[in-house]
């Protein structure tokens, strides 16, 4: 039986994974993954290549079936929760050669299943402008996306999620192929969006200073190695469990607070 405190926490949980298993072909990509993410949290998802970060995002987004266990988004099956999630996939999954304007990409956040849009042109334009103001790119509204930097393009895709008014924002490898300045911009943007109560999951390879950037960290290596406050869960054992013998490389890059059991 749940205590009152636990019930309150469950009530605000937006993503609940209970023994979730996902298979890609005959290979288990996620095995018995259990965690619970509360509404409005900024969560870093870390782990090695092939550790299941993108697969987890695909499962949350309802793109791959759960073969065992359960995954609930806002109390719904991921397939039924489509539309409440905005997904910024890895850059190679998006066709950036498409000659689209920033405005057209953001407007995609307002496209419905039905062909006729329920919004009026005035509402659409105002929503697009509002979203672009939030990501600091209003002046680029008519720019071709080919002319944007990697960081600016990520912000346009985030603006699309804002226009959609999605509850959950999934950013897969948001910091890859962008310079340090752009990473800082995206991170500060994530913090601002987070103030509006949105839940943001960011898959990243960078485990430095996670405590400063995120509320929680989900450590994945096909299974959930740890989940919680970065300063508490990023121990030597967890890092070793994720990266194996390569954990040594994090010794010099990770603040001592994240490796409290190290030495």
């Amino acid at each position, binding site marked *: 039986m749940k205590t009152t405190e636990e019930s309150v926490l469950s009530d605000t949980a937006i993503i609940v994974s209970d023994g979730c298993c996902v298979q890609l072909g005959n290979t288990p990509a996620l095995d018995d993954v259990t965690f619970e993410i509360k509404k409005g949290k900024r969560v870093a998802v870390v782990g090695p290549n092939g550790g299941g970060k993108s697969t987890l995002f695909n499962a949350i987004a309802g793109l791959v079936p759960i073969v065992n266990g359960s995954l609930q988004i806002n109390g719904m099956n991921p397939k039924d929760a489509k539309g409440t999630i905005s997904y910024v*996939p890895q850059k190679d999954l998006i*066709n950036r050669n498409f000659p689209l304007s920033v405005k057209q990409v953001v407007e*995609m956040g307002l496209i419905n299943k039905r062909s006729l849009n329920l919004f009026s042109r005035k509402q659409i334009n105002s929503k697009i402008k509002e979203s672009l103001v939030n990501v600091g790119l209003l002046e680029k509204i008519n720019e071709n996306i080919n002319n944007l930097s990697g960081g600016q393009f990520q912000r346009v895709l985030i603006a699309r999620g804002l226009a959609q008014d999605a509850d959950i924002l999934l950013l897969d490898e948001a910091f890859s192929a962008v310079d340090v300045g752009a990473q800082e911009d995206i991170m500060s943007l994530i913090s601002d969006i987070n103030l509006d109560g949105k839940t943001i999951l960011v898959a990243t390879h960078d485990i430095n200073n996670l405590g400063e950037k995120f509320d929680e960290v989900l450590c994945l290596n096909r299974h959930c190695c740890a989940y919680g406050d970065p300063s508490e869960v990023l121990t030597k054992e967890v890092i070793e469990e994720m990266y194996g013998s390569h954990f040594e490389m994090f010794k010099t890059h990770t603040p001592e607070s994240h490796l409290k059991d190290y030495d």
Partner: protein
Amino acid sequence: MIEIILEPFKYEFMVRSLITAIASGIMLSILGPFAINRNMGFMADAMAHATLPIIAVGVFLGFSISELGVPASILIAIFLGYIIKNSNVGEDTAIGIIFSSFFALGFILISVLNVTINLEDLLFGQILAVSRFDVFIVIAMCIAVVSLVIIFFKQLLFYCFDPVGAEVKGLNTNFLNYLFLVILSVAIVASLQTVGIILVLSMLLIPAAASKQITDTFVPSIYVSIIFGVFSSVSGLLLSYFFNLPSGPTMSLVATGIFVLSFLFNKISKKGSLA
């Protein structure tokens, strides 16, 4: 000058050819920008070649190419879409296998069934031979293609640009995928009599590629592609009449000429802007 240009249209067959050329030009060039930006040229070529066995069997059973158009295109689109999605050999390889095997099967069937088809007309088009019934069919297909593109424009654009994002947003991407394949297949099959199996690709891709040279964003590129496509097919038809040239290849070469000019214009204007 105008009298000279209008002179061929005193013949009914030239009026029929003109209407067919315009309809094919519109259909193919409205889809061209989607196809080139999705890198679907090879797929479109396979669709055109995959029609050969269906045409062979259909003509053997007493149907005309126009009568076969809609069912053949739907069949090809669904078959290709299914094989590509479910094969594990990669998209290009799957298309290559279907492309060559269907084309080979078509030739074998034509030979075994002893079908009377003028292969040259089928491969390079014979617009001057279109019947009144063919014209009605092509117009109907053109209206269907343009209407579906307009109705589903935003969804198709989202899907072509970011299929994963579109699926997560809740769009039915499976439907959009097959819808686009069917529309493309209909446009290709409907244009076979105009430009033929081999050259249909040129009328799909070249006007769109030329348009991309001189436009920055997607919607204007569609309008310019349609203008280039219709101009190529109509002027190709007229040139073929006046100089006694095969119509399909002439249309294709006019489109290529437009592409070369657009390419040069792009290079010169970029050079100018850098100076």
